[in-house]
């Protein structure tokens, strides 16, 4: 891989490649160390961290669907304190930016959480206002522009780190949300989170997921994600991190052309635990073939 061709700066974060592991599918990065060089990837986006530990939702939490999967984990995580004392010291040694994904129950709590994480070893925050699986926090903030803006402002107020706000696709007009968080000071926008969905067992007549509904991810959502990335990238000036159903380098190139400066791989990590690395290699080879000397030159170059 040509280091110069693939390196970039995203919202002030220096990255070796534009390809990251998406929150909730990448653990804290170390889980993939057996499969690839995690020091060579774009960034690690952590599992969602909340102020207090959360056990997550009851019952079945994952279900396969055509070309994808539903999940209703419900933000299970050890809480910010355990994250800082037991997890962060272990991953600090990885030479890859760590973006910590955060969720909280109110705009104030988001701010407090951001302050707690304004520490060494954290490269940036990804503000999750789009989890479809929790009642408090999560999607409540992700579907109302004023609420999203208020969360963004509070986080910005309490951190020195770049703030990436992760948007939900479960809205009528994604650009409204994008502009609201941009105006509130977001340094970057990531999209999309999962699309709310469900599945029913026709023998028992019960929902497949304990939480009844869950978030759909995987290749099934890629066209939706790509459309929303394209719409958003045209509507805002801040850089965009595109994700949703990426499973190969060709998918990633589509997102870059649509206007994403960087991309993340989510559910496909489960299928191919080397995906983040292989997709970066694929993009690099594509750039070489096209005679493009820097990956950023591809961003937003869709011809319409």
């Amino acid at each position: 891989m040509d280091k110069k061709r693939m390196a970039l700066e995203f919202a002030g974060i220096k990255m070796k490649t534009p390809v990251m592991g998406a929150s909730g599918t990448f653990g804290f990065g170390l889980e993939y160390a057996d499969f690839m060089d995690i020091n060579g990837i774009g960034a690690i986006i952590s599992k969602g961290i909340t102020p207090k530990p959360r056990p997550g939702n009851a019952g079945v939490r994952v279900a396969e669907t055509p070309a994808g999967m539903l999940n209703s984990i419900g933000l299970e995580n050890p809480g910010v304190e355990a994250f800082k004392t037991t997890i962060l010291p272990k991953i600090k040694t990885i030479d890859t930016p760590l973006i910590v994904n955060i969720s909280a129950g109110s705009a104030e709590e988001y701010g407090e959480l951001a302050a707690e994480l304004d520490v060494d070893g954290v490269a940036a925050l990804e503000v999750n206002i789009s989890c479809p699986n929790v009642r408090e926090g999560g999607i409540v903030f992700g579907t109302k522009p004023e609420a999203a803006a208020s969360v963004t402002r509070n986080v910005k107020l309490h951190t020195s780190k770049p703030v990436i706000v992760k948007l939900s696709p479960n809205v009528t007009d994604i650009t409204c949300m994008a502009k609201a968080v941009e105006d509130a000071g977001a340094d970057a926008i990531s999209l999309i989170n999962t699309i709310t969905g469900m599945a029913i067992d026709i023998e028992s007549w019960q929902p497949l997921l304990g939480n009844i509904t869950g978030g759909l991810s995987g290749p099934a959502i890629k066209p939706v994600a790509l459309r929303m990335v394209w719409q958003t990238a045209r509507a805002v000036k801040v850089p965009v991190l595109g994700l949703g159903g990426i499973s190969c380098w060709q998918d990633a190139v589509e997102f870059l052309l649509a206007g994403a400066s960087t991309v993340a791989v989510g559910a496909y990590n489960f299928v191919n635990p080397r995906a983040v690395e292989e997709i970066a290699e694929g993009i690099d080879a594509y750039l070489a073939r096209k005679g493009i000397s820097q990956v950023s030159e591809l961003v937003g170059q869709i011809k319409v």
Partner: protein
Amino acid sequence: MKKLLVDAVVISNEAVIPAVWKMVLWAPEIALCVQPGQFVAIRKSGGITFLRRPFSVADADPEQGTITLIYRLVGQGTAEMAAMHADEHINVEGPLGTGFSIRQGDKALLVGGGVGIAPLIFLARKLDRPVLLIGGKTAEETFWSEFLEPYAEKIYITTDDGSVGRKGFTVQALPDILAENEITGISTCGPMIMMQGVAEIAAKEGIPCEVSMEKRMACSIGVCLGCTFAGKSSGKRYKVCADGPVFPAEEVF
């Protein structure tokens, strides 16, 4: 132990009985290091299913470089597996999870029900002539004893209909077996209700017991948190795929 990702070659794939199949894969790196109770997550490239499928390893032969999976036909994924032929390739991720604690010197009793008997074959091979207690619905399901015979001191069988062995469930036969044998450790794999019954009797008798759990999982490597639960005695959050699938019984029941 390092997790590997390899393209394995199907050596053989055949029905043991119509609903249960046995697949032998050439995967020498995994055969060399996999331990009883660990599992692999497999995926046929170009297949119709999206996620990998986890299967316990029913046997491993480091000399031949093979691992054996015994699987019940339950849905799309296993139907796809059953359609595979020798020389075809399948991607294997493993070894995954934490297996049984091998207790050399123990007189072990292994209790299995249904396809949960599969990992006990591999475990029996590594132990010093354990006693086996296996249960099935009918005589057709007691084929497992053929796989176990080379390694077992004794095999007790129960069937729901009484067509082979003792009539009833494994748990009902357990007290008599414990009376007949000096058992110092129990490992069990099968339906939760069966393992719970085994665990209760083991606790009453003061015999250490470990259970192998099954839960729906997406990633198999401890990142998606689809398969977590709270330990009964410790309250600790466990991931079935990474901390297990084998756990001390007191953490599960």
